């Protein structure tokens, strides 16, 4: 498998960092486009939840993390997984039900985990990963590992009891955990206007004694800066932070979504706030990368995804034999 080359740090701190941030946002975008295509061609089954339009939040948060830091993710988790450094071939292979897939074809899109990059798993259950991140942070504290755990979740998940119980535990135990809420304005058809009686979701921290910040989730620089501050706070024993990254999902919730609950104009309006051109214009402004370099980065992302798709398509399918043996981890003698 490919070696993990993550570059931590401010996306504007050097040419390398800028390249890295842009490359990862492009990789997420191209990955999701490839998934949509595989689905459209009937090569992938099940369902898919795409994060097109939300690339800056996953990327910005993960730019502030070390490899050993852990994340829990969601049904819309491809971006988190990629930004944390997962192998693209094994991701696509999982979606195609191949043996070399991250879960050996047993989990699919909603369940990719990658121990090597500290990804404790996507989740099919809304809110399911939030207490798990708190538990990972508890382990980090007990073992004095100095790592932070980040729970990615959507606006909708904030209304699950799991969020509330987990937030309180993290606060009273001052755990090194970050509650990273990607507010894309909808949980399926349910808009945040209808599902919340507050405007800033980061205000939810008030009731638990957890500081909260709300940032432009389509601006990778803003996301990174909030993430870096939260990581520093967590790692110095300051306890949890809630980050609300305001963003938008361009695609339907899943394949069955007819988008009846929002207007085409609204979707178009958000497409004008595309996080990738937004970052590119900052790069131009700061004169960090030339257009030629930027184009090359886009091409590299595309090539990496295409390579992954080709490798995954060729790989051997998962087989039903051995499923019973896979339920439990063997008890070591």
């Amino acid at each position, binding site marked *: 498998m490919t070696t993990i080359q993550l570059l931590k740090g401010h996306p504007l701190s050097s040419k390398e960092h800028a390249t890295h941030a842009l490359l990862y946002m492009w990789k997420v975008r191209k990955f999701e486009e490839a998934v949509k295509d595989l689905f459209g061609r009937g090569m992938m089954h099940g369902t898919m939840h795409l994060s097109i339009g939300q690339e800056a939040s996953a990327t910005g948060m993960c730019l502030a993390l070390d490899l050993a830091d852990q994340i829990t993710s969601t049904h819309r988790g491809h971006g988190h997984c990629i930004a944390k450094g997962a192998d693209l071939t094994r991701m696509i292979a*999982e979606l195609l039900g191949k043996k070399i897939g991250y879960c050996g074809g047993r989990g699919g899109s909603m369940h990719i985990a990658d121990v090597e990059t500290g990804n404790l798993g996507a989740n099919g259950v809304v809110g399911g990963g939030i207490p798990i991140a708190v538990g990972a942070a508890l382990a980090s504290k007990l073992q004095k590992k100095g790592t932070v755990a980040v729970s990615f979740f959507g606006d909708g998940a904030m*209304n*699950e009891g799991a969020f509330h119980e987990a937030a309180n535990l993290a606060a009273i135990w001052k755990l090194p955990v970050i509650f990273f809420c990607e507010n894309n304005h909808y949980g399926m058809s349910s808009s945040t206007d209808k599902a919340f009686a507050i405007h800033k979701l980061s205000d939810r921290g008030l009731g638990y004694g957890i500081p909260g910040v709300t940032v432009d989730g389509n601006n990778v620089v803003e996301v990174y800066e909030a993430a870096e501050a939260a990581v520093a706070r967590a790692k110095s024993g300051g306890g949890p932070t809630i980050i609300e990254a305001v963003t938008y999902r361009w695609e339907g919730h899943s394949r069955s979504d007819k988008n009846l609950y929002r207007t085409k104009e609204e979707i178009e309006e958000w497409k004008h706030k595309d996080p990738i051109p937004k970052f590119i214009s900052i790069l131009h402004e700061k004169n960090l990368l030339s257009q030629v370099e930027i184009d090359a980065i886009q091409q590299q992302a595309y090539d990496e995804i295409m390579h992954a798709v080709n490798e995954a398509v060729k790989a051997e*399918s998962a*087989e039903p034999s051995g499923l019973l043996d896979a339920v439990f981890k063997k008890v070591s003698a």
Partner: protein
Amino acid sequence: MSEKSDTNNRMLTMAESLREAMTIAMTERDDVFLMGEDVGIYGGAFGVSSEMQNKFGEERVIDTPISELGIVGAAVGAALAGMRPIVEIQFSDFTAQAMDQIANQAAKIHFMLGGALHVPLVLRTPQGSGTGAAAQHSQVLETWFANIPGLKVVVPSNPADAKGLLLSAIDDPNPVIFLEHKLLYKFPGRDAVPEGSERIPLGVSKVVRRGSDLTIVATGIMVNKSWDVAEKLAAEGINITLIDPRTISPLDMEPIHESVRETGRLLVVQEGPSHGGFINEVIARVSESPTFGSLIAPIKRLAGMNIPIPYAPQLERAAVPQVEDIEVAAREIVKNWR
């Protein structure tokens, strides 16, 4: 195949027949309302309540945040206070979030409080595998609920039954868990769906077809798979009685005893894992009754593997009984035990 199809030709899908039942109940009485995630403009994750919010308004078809424990609890409270809520949980797997309100509250209130209060609540939820949604969106959990005294558990296998059973469930003064297989939503059944508001009583097993060689008892989608097998084997001269309990709690055993006394052979089929599964209850009741003496073959069980449902289609298929498995089992019992 039935008498009904002669008088009308309404071949509805199960999503349509369920919607019709809810619409009838909500038209008949104003204490009935529907509540759940995305049940409004989205029409529910599987389109069951499509257009219902237009018809009944946002106060009677209530979209909720993603808060299963809260909404089931609110339904219990509304039921105690004189309403008849129907709650839709988007996937039966997420009844886990609401389990306190289902198992510790709704199921126990009438008994535990000396009959002072009761909970006329229907919880509708899709279950089952076959959609590639993997382990957390594919379980058949009927056994969980059947193991809790105080809950009635309905598992319809076709649109016509679904309609009549749901109407009875809404009438019932007790909590009813109504488990709908998601692969059945989009397909019409074999029988036309009657126009009116006729109820099908809970707690009455249905003899789907009659034959003297083998008794098959199956639940939910396994009734449909078993039907295909019965049809095919009939052409070979193997005649099967197929029984659909429809309500797995309370369980009507009478037609099962009666049939086994005639055939002497019993095959039970369910989609959920075999360990602790509902079908074991059927086997136990046959085994501890005089019917046991009529058996000429060991009872055969077909159920899901004792594994979480895997994602890849080739793995997912292997995890639950398929038509071919039922066919092989049925043929073997009849051939090997004469």
